[in-house]
């Protein structure tokens, strides 16, 4: 007979494993099903290993600029690509082991294998030891997503890379084409450029990192160009031919002129496709463009079947997946009779996004443009890091903070940062937004001196025409 759980989670990424832990904390009997590696894309092939690579690039950058800090390095400074990749894989492996430990600690049953729904709350798992049948009172689908292939060329791992190949290169590319300038594309462009590779980025829209505020896109464009990256916006790759020596790419530039260029390798970073085919979802859930449609707590249209994370509508980010996991687990516990739990739906306006290129980007909420489109009368201000003492002391005076307020109510609508350490700083604005701050409380907040975070304060002041240090 099938084993019976309170909750089975299908997929162990940051959505799934967090949902499982929260369920276990609330006393549920929980199982998790995974066909590849515990921790999902995020820990094994996404957020974490890329940040490890980017850290090596950052340290390389520091060493190369040691003289600016009064240091002398006598000999050659070199990146050992194998060692850099090995470190990144080691970090991923350590975290994967960490999740294994968390499953054990929380007494979550791990079923390794390919899961398939046989009903809203039952599934089969095909693993090494054959097929098992599992049943539960509730099932959360957290199967995530994968890289989207180019329509005219499949990633082959040799010359045409997805992120998986790009983070485990066997040789350094000579000349790299990055297709797509979202977070993933830009992070790899930044990494390989720092490693000394000749990098070209092609973006179809009229600016890079197009979900960010226009000022951020413009600033980053300038900065990356100065660092030696070739950027083509409003341009499209129309065809790719790969052979043993490299790739030939037909690129249409923004004036409509098509020309062919050669590269040693190319990375496709044009978006994701949810892992929702052939797992029995068709009749159980409403689907749109492959994404599972859910209510604010993660419910599908079938009682007992839930979905979270990258296989549901975006933003496709790890922290969004994890929070949805917590919400769904709590809502399930509530349905199972727990009266002390109070699930709260995620407020999509308060989900930050970060890109760990150099310089870093971090933002939350509406861009100035989007706020105006939404009909707000906007008060926006900017503060450049060149007016910030800590940024100057760090030798990181490149960057700015921008804030967007509703002129009528003082509501903080959005915040946008580019520069050193901003990925660690944006949470201050997220806390503020979650607490429904107005400009007044942020003006009264005492940001410590000297920190780059003071630029957050100054940006708020600037939005109301009263910045102090500019």
């Amino acid at each position, binding site marked *: 007979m099938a084993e019976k759980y309170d909750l089975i989670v299908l997929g162990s990424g940051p959505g799934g494993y967090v949902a499982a832990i929260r369920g276990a904390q609330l006393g549920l009997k929980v199982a998790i099903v995974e066909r590849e590696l515990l921790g999902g894309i995020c820990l094994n092939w996404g957020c974490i290993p890329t940040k490890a690579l980017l850290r090596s690039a950052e340290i390389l950058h520091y060493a190369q600029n040691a003289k600016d800090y009064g240091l002398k390095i006598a000999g050659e400074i070199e990146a050992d690509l194998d060692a850099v990749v090995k470190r990144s894989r080691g970090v991923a492996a350590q975290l994967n082991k960490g999740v294994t430990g968390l499953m054990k600690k929380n007494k979550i049953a791990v079923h390794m294998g390919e899961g398939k729904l046989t009903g809203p709350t039952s599934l089969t798992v095909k693993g090494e030891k054959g097929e098992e049948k599992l049943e539960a009172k509730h099932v959360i689908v957290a199967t995530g997503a994968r890289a989207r292939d180019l329509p005219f060329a499949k990633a082959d791992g040799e010359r045409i890379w997805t992120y998986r190949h790009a983070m485990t290169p066997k040789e350094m590319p000579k000349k790299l084409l990055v297709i797509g300038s979202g977070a993933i594309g830009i992070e790899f462009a930044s990494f390989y450029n720092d490693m000394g590779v000749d990098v070209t980025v092609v973006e179809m829209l009229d600016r890079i990192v197009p979900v960010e505020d226009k000022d951020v896109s413009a600033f980053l464009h300038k900065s990356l160009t100065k660092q030696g990256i070739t950027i083509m916006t409003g341009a499209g790759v129309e065809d790719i031919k790969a052979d043993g020596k490299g790739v030939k790419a037909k690129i249409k530039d923004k004036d409509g002129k098509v020309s062919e260029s050669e590269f040693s390798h190319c990375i496709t970073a044009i978006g994701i496709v949810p892992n929702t085919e052939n797992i029995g979802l068709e009749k159980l859930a409403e689907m749109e463009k492959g994404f599972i449609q859910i209510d604010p707590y993660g419910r599908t249209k079938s009682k007992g079947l839930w979905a979270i994370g990258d296989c549901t509508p975006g933003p496709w980010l790890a922290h969004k997946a994890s929070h949805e996991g917590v919400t769904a687990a709590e809502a399930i516990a509530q349905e199972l009779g727990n009266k002390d739990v*109070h699930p*709260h739906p995620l407020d999509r306006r308060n989900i930050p996004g970060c890109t760990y290129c150099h310089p870093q980007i971090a933002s939350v909420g509406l861009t100035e443009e989007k706020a105006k489109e939404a009909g707000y009368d906007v008060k926006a201000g900017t503060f450049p890091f060149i007016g910030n003492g800590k940024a100057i002391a760090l030798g990181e005076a490149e960057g700015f903070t921008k804030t967007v307020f509703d002129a009528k*109510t*003082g509501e903080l609508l959005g915040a946008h940062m580019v520069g050193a350490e901003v990925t660690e700083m944006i949470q201050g604005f997220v806390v503020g937004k979650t*607490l429904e701050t*107005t400009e*007044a*409380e942020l003006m009264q907040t005492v940001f410590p001196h000297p920190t780059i975070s003071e630029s957050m304060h100054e940006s708020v002041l600037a939005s109301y025409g009263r910045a102090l240090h500019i």
Partner: protein
Amino acid sequence: PQKAPPAPKNDGERIFASPLARRIADQKGLDLSDVKGSGPHGRIVKADVEGAEGGRPANEAKPGAVA
């Protein structure tokens, strides 16, 4: 309980209060529409509810409930 919708004023308008002020008011059984806010934009803050007396029977003090 802290997820209770913002207390409506008599005229149905939303009351702005800090989360801490809301929770203390709840624990004391205070009606926030009777409280004048001294914070920015008239927001009701802790200091505004701390000294005030509860109008309705005070709820027993709950530990910060889980979200």
